[in-house]
């Protein structure tokens, strides 16, 4: 390992950390070395033990074995409060602020500066909040309520909070998963300035471009074990992926050439005031069309309107030449439309219900006989589909919430593929799932297109868009601004259109 000039003693080390929950060994050999003044990437598939390691650092889980040192001294964290006192702050993907309290009150919750008679010194609180934001170089009003802040702004509030108690170690657990491109850049600027001021930052992300752009060193984990830690300059994406999966991922985007058929889905002048405006496009059988754009461009709203979950003011939607009635998902399903929604936990699945009930929920009527739906019919069907999609399940009667994120997404896919759709709409199909499952999902989409299904994919991941799509439709602020054929689509052309810098087609 090359010499680092920043400091001799690491800000934090973790060695031989082990954590089991009953028979499940979540962490077998967790190792980590964070130096002051570095951004350290942590990557691994879902279930590789990243989350458990973060929770150990956050004081949420006490490890069964292992040594933790902070600034060279051994430390034991009895709980989240200990971790905070020790200068470790964790920024989660979706921060939980008190929505009705002001930004400043959120930052100083539980340790407000006091005046005489234990009254809260609001002036001091506001002043200190301003100082923190100035230090971070962001513009936020300390007095505004947290309600209505974007997720990116909420994260900044959390970071300011971390700074307010002089955190030396910042753990960021997939902070960019729900951010748009501009917001990611702003977050990166903040992270870099924190690095300059000597903080140690652990950055967890599924997006390799970000990890490589931001981090100084990268640690790879697999199956609860430390695999490697290397300076970013000595690594390639291919190497990291191989170490994560422990095998070659031959083709991450196995796009097959297919025979493009007739128009199956046709959207004409779809408009919803203030959300999307005069959106028109066609998707042909055998085609994969990507709907790209920044978060908030109205892509998910358009596909939800097509499926009938959201309303629209004017325009029409045709499937196989026949007009779909408005606002009726059941009618869309009957016409052969399937939607794999953006939010798996809230929209895709009923988390409390068994796996088998979730798989068969879309086909309750077709599986029933004389109006009766027996548990055996459900189980046999769920068994067939989970095996077909290689979902790793213990018992089909377990709640679907017991599965990992990737397997949950496969259950959502099973639920919709089993309806035999003519139009498959997928909204962020691989968000937050591991590399292996991602490749399987992509292969599945290609295969379906090969069978003549019209696939419409909303995705914020450019490599996915470029790798999978026959055509890329780009939305910007509610309008469809550009249509790019596969041959001409590259990162630059899509990003230019998505940021509104390209002319109308």
């Amino acid at each position: 390992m090359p010499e680092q000039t920043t400091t001799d003693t690491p800000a934090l080390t973790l060695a031989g950390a082990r954590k089991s929950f009953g028979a499940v060994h979540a962490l077998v050999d967790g190792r980590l070395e964070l130096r002051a003044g570095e951004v350290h990437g942590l990557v691994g598939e879902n279930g590789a033990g990243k989350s458990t390691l973060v929770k150990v650092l956050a004081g949420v889980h006490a490890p069964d074995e292992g040594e933790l040192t902070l600034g060279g001294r051994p430390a034991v964290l009895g709980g989240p409060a200990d971790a905070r006192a020790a200068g470790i702050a964790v920024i989660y993907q979706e921060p939980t602020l008190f929505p009705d309290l002001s930004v400043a009150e959120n930052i100083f919750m539980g340790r407000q500066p006091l005046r005489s008679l234990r009254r809260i010194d609001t002036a001091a609180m506001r002043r200190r909040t301003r100082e923190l934001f100035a230090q971070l170089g962001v513009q936020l009003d300390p007095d505004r309520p947290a309600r209505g802040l974007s997720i990116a702004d909420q994260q900044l509030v959390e970071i300011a909070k971390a700074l307010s108690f002089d955190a030396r170690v910042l753990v960021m657990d997939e902070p960019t998963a729900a951010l748009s491109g501009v917001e990611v850049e702003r977050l990166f600027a903040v992270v870099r300035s924190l690095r300059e001021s000597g903080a140690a930052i652990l950055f967890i992300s599924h997006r390799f471009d970000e990890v490589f752009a931001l981090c100084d060193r990268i640690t790879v984990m697999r199956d609860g074990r430390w695999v490697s830690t290397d300076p970013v300059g000595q690594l390639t994406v291919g190497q990291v992926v191989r170490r994560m999966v422990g095998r070659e991922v031959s083709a991450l985007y196995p796009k097959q050439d297919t025979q493009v058929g007739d128009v199956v889905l046709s959207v004409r002048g779809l408009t919803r005031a203030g959300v999307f405006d005069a959106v028109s496009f066609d998707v042909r059988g055998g085609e994969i069309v990507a709907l790209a754009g920044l978060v908030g461009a109205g892509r998910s709203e358009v596909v939800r309107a097509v499926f009938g979950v959201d309303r629209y003011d004017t325009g029409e939607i045709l499937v196989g030449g026949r007009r779909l009635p408005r606002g009726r998902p059941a009618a869309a399903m009957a016409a052969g439309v399937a939607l794999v929604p953006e939010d798996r936990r809230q929209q895709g699945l009923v988390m409390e219900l068994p796996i088998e009930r979730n798989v068969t929920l879309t086909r309750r009527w077709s599986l029933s006989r004389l109006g009766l739906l027996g548990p055996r019919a459900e189980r046999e069907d769920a068994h067939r589909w989970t095996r077909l999609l290689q979902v790793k399940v213990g018992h089909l009667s377990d709640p679907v919430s017991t599965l990992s994120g990737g397997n949950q997404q496969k259950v959502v896919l099973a639920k919709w593929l089993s309806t035999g759709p003519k139009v498959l709409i997928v909204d962020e199909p691989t968000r937050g799932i591991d590399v292996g499952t991602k490749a399987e999902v992509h292969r599945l989409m290609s295969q379906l297109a090969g069978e003549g299904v019209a696939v419409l994919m909303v995705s914020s991941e450019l490599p996915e868009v470029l790798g999978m799509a026959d055509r890329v439709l780009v939305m910007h602020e509610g309008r469809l601004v550009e249509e790019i054929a596969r041959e001409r689509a590259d990162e630059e052309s899509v990003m230019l259109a998505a940021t509104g810098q390209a002319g109308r087609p």
Partner: protein
Amino acid sequence: MVPKRLGTWDVLVVVVLAAVVVASSVLVDGFATSRFWGFLLLDVIPVALIALPMTLVIITGEIDLSVASVLGLSSAVMGQLWLSGTPLPLILPLVVLLGAVCGAVNGLFVTGFGLPSLAVTIGTLALYRGLSYVVLGDRAVADFPFSWTGAFIEPLPGTTVPWVAVVVLGLAVVFGVVLHATPIGRALFAMGNNDQAATFSGISVARTKFRLFVLTGAIAALAGFFWTMRYASARADNGGGLELAVVAAVLLGGVSIFGGRGTLAGVLAGVLLLITLRNALQLADVPADTLTVVTGTLLIISVVGPNAATMLRERLRRRRPA
């Protein structure tokens, strides 16, 4: 195969019910007689009848507190119609229709305007009861022909079991099958756990809930007809406070007040437990006020109990994740 969830709370309710029956048989004079059981079943009928649709409503995450007032309103309207010379065979469908309209009003406020059903039906609880007094005042209409009033409390030949109780049991089987073994039942559980995910699965959440409110209103009115016939008296205050007994029985039967969880068999056990306990205490000369205390206490226990049981299970599961 028995679903996992059936195991705990439902079984406990049945065990407690058995214990109450055994203890009462020993301790309370006159409990272990077929005559007492005949009367007990007559008391069970209206509660069980309304508990059937209420179970579905609560499983979808809603509640209808106006049922007893719909019962009262249907009784009052029945009295007024009888006074104006309407024949009983015509009155029956009319009051059931009236109940359906009352339910539709509830359903419209809940699904059309997106208001919480708790608030809406507390409002209509007062509204419908007020309307019953508008219709009939504080009079009682008690001159229904015995050929009708007597027929509704008639036991099956050779037993003391009222035939209406058998009809209610048959209805309970139908409701149980719909809830546990049909596509409709699957949809109810799905929307009770997460109505957004249900919508994304093509389930018409609003329409289904609206229909359930209509059904609940109609059945509450039907219970009002039975109530009036049984006591041979149409009054505006009939069935006052019955909504508490129904909700208590449903929750006691293991249905989650938060929706998405429960069994119809459990609810039947809950109804029997509640009514048996009350009647046994009544028979033992416990004053009426104390009986209300019992209902209230059971309601609290049934809300806290399953949650405590679930928490305990979750904690055990966390200790050994699958």
